[in-house]
Structure formats: structure tokens, C-alpha cells
């Protein structure tokens, strides 16, 4: 998944990687490309993880994990950081998801349960401001229920904001007609993929070959 996401991000892009699985994208930047990684807690130019015992508790990412900064990085405060996000200066936001609807609605901050502690962080700002919002997620929940839905049942993070979804089973683009399958895992059939997906899937006449 992370490799496929990275392959779809153009050279020179300014990219925010969400907490968790999306952070893996940083490890798969294709040769010859350079992305600038933004972390909303105040750094452009996130570098590789620090060597053991080189961690600085004052140099962390949005997931509060230790990071490094590249040569050519810049630090800034939170209002400036979200000015970058809200002002449309970031090219790509890669986020996890609880649910995605076929109109691009995203739910990734709350199950809406009464006893849950609601926590939103920067997700609503990212989806509202970043030019292209990519979602990385398992195709279904741990107990096998679809996460790609006709309509989200959890509280929304944003309305019609997702551009593309990368799952363990497929790459799916949001189109005016709904979910359009761009790639599938080798050996998977269209019928099988549809069975794991709540909303109807559109398949291109000629399926794209999976990349190697």
C-alpha cells in the first residue's frame, strides 16, 4: 500500500502523512523523486527516524514519535502550520479511515459511541485544506465488515473530500459516479472485491496491470 501511494505522488510534492499506517509512505519514495514531508506540529522537511539514543523529545511528529529534520527544513508555530494546510499549500494528505463513502465523505475521528472520548486533532483541517486527500486503510474492519460504504454511519471528518483509496485489496478512485477501481490485488476477482465493499464498484473496461 505504502509503495503504491508513494508512486502516485509527484516529484516536489508537499505531503502530510497521517498518524499510523500513512507514516510508512516516507519509506517508499521512488528514486529520483523528492517529497517534502510536513508535520502539522511545526516542521517542513521531516527526515528519517533518528538513530537509537539520538531521539530528541522536542523533535517529534504529529503521532508524537521522534523524528529528524532534513537539511533545508523549517520550523514554525501552529497557526503558520495550519495556514499551510488550510491555505491549500500542501499537495497531498495521506490519512487513515474508519469509513469512506462513495461520494468521498470520510469518517476517521470518532465512532460516535456515547462512552468514546472524542478526539479530532488536525484531520478536519487537513481534509478541508489539502489539494489531494489519499486514504490508506484495510479494505474491511477487523471483523470483516466493509469500510467502503454507500454512506458513512460514523460522524464525518469531511464531506466529499477523499480523492483516492488504497486498501490491501485495491486502489479505488472517487469519481462523480462513485468508486472506480483502478487496480486490484493479483488473483482477486471483481466479484470478490465487490463482496467486501458496500457501495457499487465501477470497473474500467481494461483493468490496469498491478505495478511490480
Amino acid at each position, binding site marked *: 500500500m505504502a509503495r503504491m501511494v508513494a508512486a502516485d505522488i509527484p516529484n516536489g510534492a508537499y505531503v502530510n502523512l497521517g498518524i499510523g499506517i500513512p507514516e510508512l509512505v516516507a519509506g517508499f519514495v521512488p528514486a529520483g523523486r523528492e517529497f517534502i514531508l510536513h*508535520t*502539522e*506540529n*511545526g*516542521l517542513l522537511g521531516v527526515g528519517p527516524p533518528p538513530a537509537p539514543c539520538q531521539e*530528541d*523529545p*522536542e*523533535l*517529534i*511528529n504529529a503521532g*508524537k514519535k521522534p523524528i529528524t*529534520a532534513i537539511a533545508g527544513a523549517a*520550523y*514554525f*508555530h*501552529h*497557526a503558520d*502550520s*495550519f495556514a499551510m*494546510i*488550510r491555505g491549500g499549500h500542501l499537495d497531498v494528505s495521506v490519512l487513515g479511515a474508519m469509513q469512506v463513502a462513495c461520494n468521498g465523505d470520510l469518517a476517521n475521528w*470518532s465512532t460516535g459511541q456515547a*462512552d468514546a*472520548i*472524542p*478526539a*479530532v*486533532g*488536525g*484531520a*478536519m*483541517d487537513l481534509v*478541508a*485544506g489539502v489539494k489531494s486527500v489519499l486514504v490508506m486503510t484495510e479494505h474491511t474492519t477487523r471483523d470483516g465488515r466493509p469500510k467502503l460504504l454507500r454512506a458513512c454511519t460514523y*460522524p*464525518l*471528518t*469531511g*464531506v466529499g473530500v477523499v480523492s483516492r483509496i488504497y486498501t490491501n485489496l485495491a486502489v479505488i478512485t472517487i469519481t462523480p459516479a462513485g468508486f472506480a477501481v483502478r487496480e486490484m490485488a493479483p488473483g482477486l476477482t471483481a466479484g470478490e472485491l465487490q463482496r467486501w465493499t458496500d457501495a457499487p464498484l465501477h470497473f474500467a473496461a481494461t483493468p490496469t496491470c498491478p505495478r511490480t
Partner: protein
Amino acid sequence: MIDKRVTSLPEALSGIRDGASVMIGGFGEAGSPIELIHGLIDLGPRELTVISNNTGSGRVGLAALIAAGRVAKVICSYPRSANSMVFPELYRAGRIELELVPQGTLAERIRAGGAGIPAFFTPSAVGTQLAAGKEVRSFSGRDYILEHALTADFALVRADRADRYGNLTYSRTARNFGPIMCMAARCAIAQVRRIVEPGQIDPESVVTPGIFVQRVVHVAEPVQESHLVKQGAVYP
């Protein structure tokens, strides 16, 4: 002569009374002014409104302030983390109020408070539960919601260097909410690792100009919150 340095934590925190609103800097432990927070626990004011990105970890720092029952309400974006149990307990028990704000809206509301802007329109949270009850207006065909400025009686922040004028620099991603909270509070209190002579901070590199800072207190070696949490430390 202007001199904003004070010599002790109690002096730095004097005047924070019951019912005060207090902005507390930091993103996780980075930039969290843990000595000032512990000093505030010692000082004792209750019914505080705390404006902060998180609600602390373990039973030290901000989590300890909340655990001590001093906080009536938190305004924050992310009130849970891997090691937070204090806030969730009190919240589920209905003993603390939460105003949940998207992180960028939180930052912009604080910046607006400091900049004399009472309200602004933003696209963040449009169409979500967090927009409930808010004015919606369309500009150039897109919907935005109206958000209001946040100000506070006090701000507690952690910076790296200060001079007697209150000019501040920060360390790496510990900068986060510090500069804008200093702007938005009527009394901004900074704990700093180093105090230097005026002019030793390059005027091109000052992050928070002294006009936004009222008190500076020297804490040469702040304790590291994550170490205390690992050790299971409890404050006080």
C-alpha cells in the same frame, strides 16, 4: 529598566485565581511547561478553563493538574493519547467539560485572539458535528463556518532562550502553540532553559517578540514528562 525576569515559579504564577482561563503550550510533551504546571498545582486555583492541544499523559504535568480536580473545562483538539487516563476517567464521570476543536481551528482562534480579530470564517469542520450550531456562509461558492477568537487570562509556555525584554526562541517542534498563546493571553508566562543578554538573540530570529510576554522564569533543566510517565511518577 524593563525586566520581565522573575526569580521563582510562585512569583511567575502569582495572580492565577479560581476560575481563571489558562492557555498551556505544548504538543504532547514537546513544549509542555511542566514546571509551571506543577507550580500551578502547588498554587491551588480551582475551576480553571484550560486551553491546550492535549490533556496530558500519566499523572504528571497537565494530567496531574486535571487529576487534582482543578480544571472545570478543557478546550482542546486531542484529549487522549497512549498514556492518558486521567481525562477520560473524569470526562466519562461527567466531572469535566470538553470543547472539542479541530487543531487548525484551535490554532487560528488563538492567533485571532492575539491579533484583535474577534471572528473569522474557516472551511475546517464544515458539514461535520463540530459545525453544529455555527453560522455557515458561502464565499465564492464554497461553504465556511464562523469561528470566534480565544483569549485567556494567562498563558504558560516553554521556550528555549529569553532576554529581559521577554523575547523568546523555541526548540524545534516544541515551538507549536507557544508563540500564539503568548499573543492571546493577558499575562504570558514563559519558562526558559536559558536567559541571555539583550542582543544575544539575533533580532531576525526572535520568534516571540517581548511585547507578548509578561514574565520569564528560568528552569535550566526541565524534567522530561515521558520519563516521569514511564517511571509511574505522580505529582504532587
